């Protein structure tokens, strides 16, 4: 008999709790009911400011937060819990629903703190917490803009949240004022020196900073507001945003008589259990052993603790590292450990470089031997190396660690102790990584990632993983194989620069030996991308893997399968009939593929050209199912038929498939286009996926299904078709040039130095100045595309290779035989293999 868990609130932490519980509750012991206040499922509130880029709430969606298809979770948005009856163990929601619980988790989060200032409730005064708050701010900005052109705005609060709000206003085209009561910006994270530099860097971004003063009153003046500051300044603005911190929402717990912490928050023990053993509290509304945490990472730990407890395991909140590293309006800010030198006798070592705009401070023990904490502003590149050293003996002179040469130069990863946390997102220590290398035999960054999860979240520690491998004595060779010391990307550049057109020439000049099954297909792919005629032309034919060599997919009995291109999955009845007739006439097994096309199995080598002849005559062409090339662009029916479609997804899918067909790449490329946010084309599981919004297209990249699924990341949003195509052109060419052999875009993006931000810099903002070149290369590909099947049919020499036996042309392979299963031919192996299949 299953028990009922009620979760009050559906923010990021509540979602993590449900996810963790459902992930582990294999026996289904809990039925979960989640009541949320906001009108939508939990979303990425940490990234709230990015909503201004697209005004598309889907961009903030958390994967799986709707629990679609999970009948053990009922999500009720827009209907918060209003009261708890602890005796009866039931809650009442705002709509009047009464729900029994066996366990209740309070995850009601925080409310924005609005200081008791006269006029704080006037129209034009906002807070900054939810998507709806941002919608309201946007509407106010637009109204003011209609009245007088350039509106003015002020933010009360110069901490993390205040600067986020200021960024949002800047992204709306305003030049906001920021009012902070403390003598510096981000008073909790940085010291006066760092705050001074931060003030300068932020002011350079067109923000007017007022520190050391409060807001004493807000007065309405027609349709404008006047904000009076404590220092006598008066700001004349159209809108004002309070973003001066948050307070735990503990009212539900208070009213139910639960104990509350001294500084607010529902008081819990280390297992996040409140004074009522059936009620837990997690996230920002909880006061765990008297301490309230305003960051998401500790909230996630609490969620996991409660999920484990509910499943009968012992778990306690391990405490949280409140170190932070973030980028505010492009300015790096990091603080860790005892950043403000509160430890008695501690010493501060400061390197202030106003010219380059960086401020770095280390706090060390009185004997200057132990690192206690630090602050980095303007350049936080040493953060990953320094944070794990907190509480440890310093490996060198403190000043050298933050000097111009940088910590990376001054301290090697060898200096880090084994318990130093390398990946703070997933709490992986240096010792665990060393164990993965020595004990589990991990010999690459990718292997470490899948073994330990280090580097799989924000990715900032990935360079450290490489250094740790090197420190363990693992050499990471980028050589393609024994014949080439170069990586695939290097060979690509060599071929591009030298205009070498054959494998023989390339291996003679840049490699050794005769080549192998690794380097030959890789070079064949490079030659094909750079346009060297038909893939079976001249020597190229012998470089190809068997699939490419016969332009079909070899199956387990040595026969091939044939997949004609069906762009976007759209096909006429007449063409469907042709495929059916071909299959019937050649005795082929047919199956619908996952990429919205039809696969014809069981063709022998000599049948292939005859099958193609029939298909080509009916207007089909190769679907490149055999190639490391663009496969399909899957689509939903979009506006053409669907009641919910927002754009013509089929039209775009057809256009993209025809544009990129035949493009040879390091691995196969899959794509998808969905006509609305329901995402029926599963575009986010593709190498590039497009999702329609009412404003245009959102482009996602680096997705993957298969054994290691990865949701694609949003690269750009709200673009029109021309811009979309331009960015896909650049993205694909950049990938084709720089990826390793057989590296899908997902793995490539994970290993790309600088990750998604770097990719966006390169292919959207053209930081390397190569976009013109990438687009030209794609234009070249598009202009010279020709159907490979037709190329064979038109050339007697190529055609002659399609025989099973050189001494008996026309005789099929006698070892190939079929039997009938479910009314279709399937292979039967005549000879028993001498060795078991693997």
């Amino acid at each position: 008999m299953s028990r009922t868990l009620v979760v009050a609130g559906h923010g990021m932490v509540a979602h993590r709790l449900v996810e963790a519980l459902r992930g582990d509750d294999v026996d289904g012991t809990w039925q979960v009911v989640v009541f949320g206040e906001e009108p939508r499922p939990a979303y990425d509130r940490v990234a709230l400011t990015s909503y201004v880029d697209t005004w598309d709430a889907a961009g903030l969606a958390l994967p799986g937060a709707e629990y679609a298809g999970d009948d053990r979770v009922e999500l009720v948005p827009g209907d918060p819990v209003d009261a708890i009856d602890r005796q009866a163990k039931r809650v009442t929601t705002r709509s009047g629903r009464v729900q029994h619980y066996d366990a209740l988790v309070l995850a009601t989060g925080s409310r924005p703190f609005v200081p008791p200032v006269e006029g704080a409730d006037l129209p034009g005064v906002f807070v900054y917490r939810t998507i709806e708050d941002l919608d309201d701010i946007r509407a106010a900005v637009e109204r003011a803009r209609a009245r007088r052109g350039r509106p003015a705005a002020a933010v009360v609060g110069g901490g993390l949240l205040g600067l986020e709000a200021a960024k949002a206003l800047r992204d709306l085209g305003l030049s906001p004022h920021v009012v902070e009561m403390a003598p510096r910006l981000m008073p909790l994270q940085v010291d006066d020196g760092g705050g001074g530099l931060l003030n300068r860097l932020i002011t350079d971004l067109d923000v007017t900073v007022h520190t050391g003063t409060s807001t004493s009153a807000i007065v309405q003046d027609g349709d404008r507001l006047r904000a009076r500051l404590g220092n006598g300044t008066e700001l004349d603005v159209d809108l004002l945003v309070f973003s001066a911190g948050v307070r735990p929402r503990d009212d539900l717990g208070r009213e139910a008589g639960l104990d509350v912490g001294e500084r607010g928050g529902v008081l819990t023990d280390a297992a996040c259990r409140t004074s009522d053993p059936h009620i837990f509290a997690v996230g920002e509304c909880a006061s765990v052993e008297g301490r309230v945490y305003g960051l998401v990472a500790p909230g996630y730990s609490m969620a996991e603790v409660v999920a484990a407890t509910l499943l009968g395991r012992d778990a306690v909140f391990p405490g949280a590292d409140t170190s932070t590293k973030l980028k505010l309006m492009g300015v790096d800010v990091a603080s860790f450990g005892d950043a403000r030198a509160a430890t008695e006798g501690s010493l501060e070592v400061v390197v202030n470089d106003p010219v380059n705009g960086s401020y770095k401070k280390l706090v060390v023990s009185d004997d200057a031997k132990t690192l206690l904490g630090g602050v980095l502003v303007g350049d936080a590149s040493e953060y990953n190396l320094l944070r794990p050293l907190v509480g440890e003996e310093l490996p060198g002179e403190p000043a050298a660690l933050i000097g111009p040469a940088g910590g990376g130069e001054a301290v090697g990863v060898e200096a880090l102790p084994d318990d130093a946390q390398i990946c703070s997102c997933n709490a992986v220590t240096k010792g665990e990584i060393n164990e993965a290398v020595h004990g589990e035999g991990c010999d690459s960054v990718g292997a470490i990632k899948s073994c330990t999860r280090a580097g799989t979240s924000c990715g900032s520690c990935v360079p450290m993983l490489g250094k740790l491998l090197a420190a363990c004595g693992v050499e990471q060779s980028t050589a393609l194989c024994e014949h080439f010391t170069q990586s695939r990307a290097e060979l690509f550049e060599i071929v591009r620069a030298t205009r070498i057109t054959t494998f023989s020439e390339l291996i003679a000049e840049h490699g050794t030996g005769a080549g192998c099954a690794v380097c030959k297909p890789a070079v064949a792919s490079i030659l094909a991308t750079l346009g060297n005629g038909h893939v079976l032309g001249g020597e190229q034919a012998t470089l190809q893997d068997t699939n490419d060599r016969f332009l079909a997919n070899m199956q387990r009995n040595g026969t091939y399968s044939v997949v004609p291109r069906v762009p976007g999955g759209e096909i006429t009845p007449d063409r469907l009939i042709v495929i059916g007739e071909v299959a019937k006439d050649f005795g082929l097994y047919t199956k619908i593929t996952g990429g919205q096309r039809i696969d014809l199995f069981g063709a022998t080598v000599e049948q292939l050209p005859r099958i193609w002849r029939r298909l080509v005559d009916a207007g089909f062409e190769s679907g490149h199912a055999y190639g490391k090339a663009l496969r399909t662009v899957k689509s939903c029916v979009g506006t053409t038929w669907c009641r919910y479609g927002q754009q013509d997804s089929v039209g775009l899918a057809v256009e993209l498939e025809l544009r990129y067909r035949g493009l040879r790449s390091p691995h196969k490329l899959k794509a998808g286009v969905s006509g609305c946010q329901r995402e029926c084309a599963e575009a986010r599981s593709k190498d590039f996926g497009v999702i329609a919004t009412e404003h245009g297209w959102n482009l996602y990249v680096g997705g993957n299904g298969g054994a290691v699924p990865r949701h694609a990341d949003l690269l750009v949003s709200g673009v029109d078709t021309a811009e979309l195509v331009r960015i896909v052109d650049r993205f694909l060419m950049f990938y084709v040039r720089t990826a390793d052999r057989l590296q899908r875009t997902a793995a490539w993006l994970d290993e790309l130095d600088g990750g998604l931000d770097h990719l966006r810099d390169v292919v959207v903002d053209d930081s390397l100045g190569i976009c013109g070149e990438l687009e030209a290369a794609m234009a070249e590909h598009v202009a010279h595309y020709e159907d490979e099947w037709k190329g064979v049919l038109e050339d007697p020499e190529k055609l002659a290779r399609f025989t099973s036996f050189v001494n008996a042309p026309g005789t099929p392979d006698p070892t190939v035989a079929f039997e009938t299963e479910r009314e279709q031919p399937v292979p039967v192996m005549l000879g028993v293999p001498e060795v078991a299949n693997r």
Partner: protein
Amino acid sequence: MTVLSDEQQAGSTVWTPVCRVEQVPLAAGVAVLLDGGLQVAVLRTAGDEFFGLSNVDPFSGAAVLSRGIVGDVGGVPVVASPIYKQNFDLRTGQCLDEAGVRIDVHPLRITDGVVHVGVR
């Protein structure tokens, strides 16, 4: 052009002409069908040496080795099975990836530009 595997004890060997040398591309192979259904992969290296191996991939049972990529691994001339990619030594039939697996080798003889396969 050199001819390898042309064994000295030709006495009991039956030689069958199968194709002209130019029908076998450099660094590639072709399959031949002999009496009794025996299939031989005739493989030609980039250095223009000819080898004859059983065409049947022992790991899958499919007759496909003539369609593998011809190259070298550690200096050993090899063909890679197109099914699961194991390499086979062209001279001995020894599988490089699995010590206990070896496939049949067939001697070849080239006369007047014609490739002959020998079966003992």
